[in-house]
């Protein structure tokens, strides 16, 4: 049984339909990359999964449990197993790095402060920011903020980590520090669903690539299949455009 399974998912922002029956599934330990032109609905899938955007139809099953958006308990249970990192980091501006990383473990998951802080220190070290634990978000560079955001997500000990275009808002010279962190997580067997425009990176870390267009899945396959031997016309077009860059 797949760890996460999405069947026939649809969603809309007001009148605008952004997902038309998306199917998606993956196992534990997989790194799945969602690619496709902007506006194809990649980010919407992540937002629907964590209950930030309502879905209008379809099913989501995480670890054998259906995520029912109508039920607060079900959404809570799903959020308990997933963590999301946003394009704009969305760190809490009123808290220092340590507090950003520990607040949810302490207040939501009920861990002790000592335990949560030791854990946070370990995670911050891993993302290379051990010495920044008392800095505030507005004192950090974009790349550092994004790594804190990843640390904050990891501190929740998620089963699935959702990364929503985490390098898109960064200056080019800061992209690599964040990609290195994610590469490191992939090596450790973290299950991840990544929305990214960094094709070389996707090719390197993803075990599965899902190509989307206009709210639909166009093609699914290994990186080699998608990038070297795209089957559909739309995929060929998109890949061709990217590789020319």
């Amino acid at each position, binding site marked *: 049984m797949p760890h996460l399974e999405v069947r026939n998912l649809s969603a809309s922002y007001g009148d605008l339909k952004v997902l038309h029956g998306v199917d998606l599934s993956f196992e534990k330990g997989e790194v799945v990359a969602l690619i496709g032109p902007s506006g194809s609905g990649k980010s919407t899938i992540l937002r629907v999964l964590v*209950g930030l955007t309502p879905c209008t139809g379809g099913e989501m099953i995480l670890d054998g449990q259906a995520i029912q958006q109508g039920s607060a308990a079900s959404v809570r249970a799903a959020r308990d197993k997933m963590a999301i990192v946003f394009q704009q980091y969305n760190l809490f501006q009123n808290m220092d790095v340590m507090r950003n990383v520990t607040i949810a473990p302490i207040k939501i998951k009920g861990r002790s402060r000592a335990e949560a802080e030791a854990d946070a220190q370990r995670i911050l070290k891993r993302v290379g920011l051990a010495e920044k634990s008392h800095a505030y978000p507005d*004192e950090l560079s974009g790349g550092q903020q994004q790594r804190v955001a990843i640390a904050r997500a990891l501190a929740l000990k998620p089963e699935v980590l959702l990364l929503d275009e985490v390098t898109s808002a960064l200056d080019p010279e800061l992209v690599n520090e964040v990609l290195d962190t994610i590469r490191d997580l992939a090596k450790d067997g973290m299950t991840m669903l990544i929305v990214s425009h960094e094709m070389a990176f996707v090719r390197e870390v993803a075990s599965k690539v899902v190509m989307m267009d206009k709210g639909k899945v166009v093609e699914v396959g290994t990186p080699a299949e998608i990038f070297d031997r795209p089957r559909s016309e739309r995929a060929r077009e998109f890949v061709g455009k990217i590789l020319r860059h």
Partner: protein
Amino acid sequence: MEQILHQLPEFFSPTNVRILAQSMGVTIALTFFGCGLGFLFAFFIVFARQTPGHWALPLRAAAIFFVEIFRRIPFLVTGYLVLFFLSAIIRNPSLFVIALMAIFIYATAYTADIVRGGLESVPRTQIEAAQAMNFGRWRTLLHVIVPQSWPVILPPAMVFMVAFVKDTAVVSQLGVFELAFRGRELNNHGFSGVLVYSTIALLYFAMSYPLTRFGQWLEKRLATPRSQKSKRKLR
């Protein structure tokens, strides 16, 4: 003019000075406690107004109604409403409490909009980050929204409170022994109106102006981002 100069020593007698000082204390206490309580309650009004769901419709309506109504009634009328209403239901209510309640109601209605603006100024993305981490509504408010809205809320709330130091003069009509009441009393005792009301005006000014400057200083300070503040410390 001669008459005024003649009255000066008697007007500034120790007794009068003491009475005026005491009444200034009453004015400050009324402003501080009335506005302070009103400010706190304004948060609850706004929370009520922002409660989602069909069941909360009456709650939202009541919150909007309260604010809209009391912002459209003169403060003096609010004072009389409280006075006559309390007199109708209990015997001999304390005038200080009546004045305090009137200020409380008025301050709640006026600061509620300030609070609402502040809470709504926090970016939606901050709230989404909290939601995705399973913060409930109250935790999101307490840990994320309220702390971040302080710099937006505090300066105008301060301006309101400072402005209210002088607006409290109106409660003299309810018979509270605050500064304006004592002024009217001294005038009735035969002291020159020019002398009395100039003095009273200056005393209000002495309370209000320093607070105005403090409010302006606070606004500037809060407008400085934290990163610049810490840099300043390093130098």
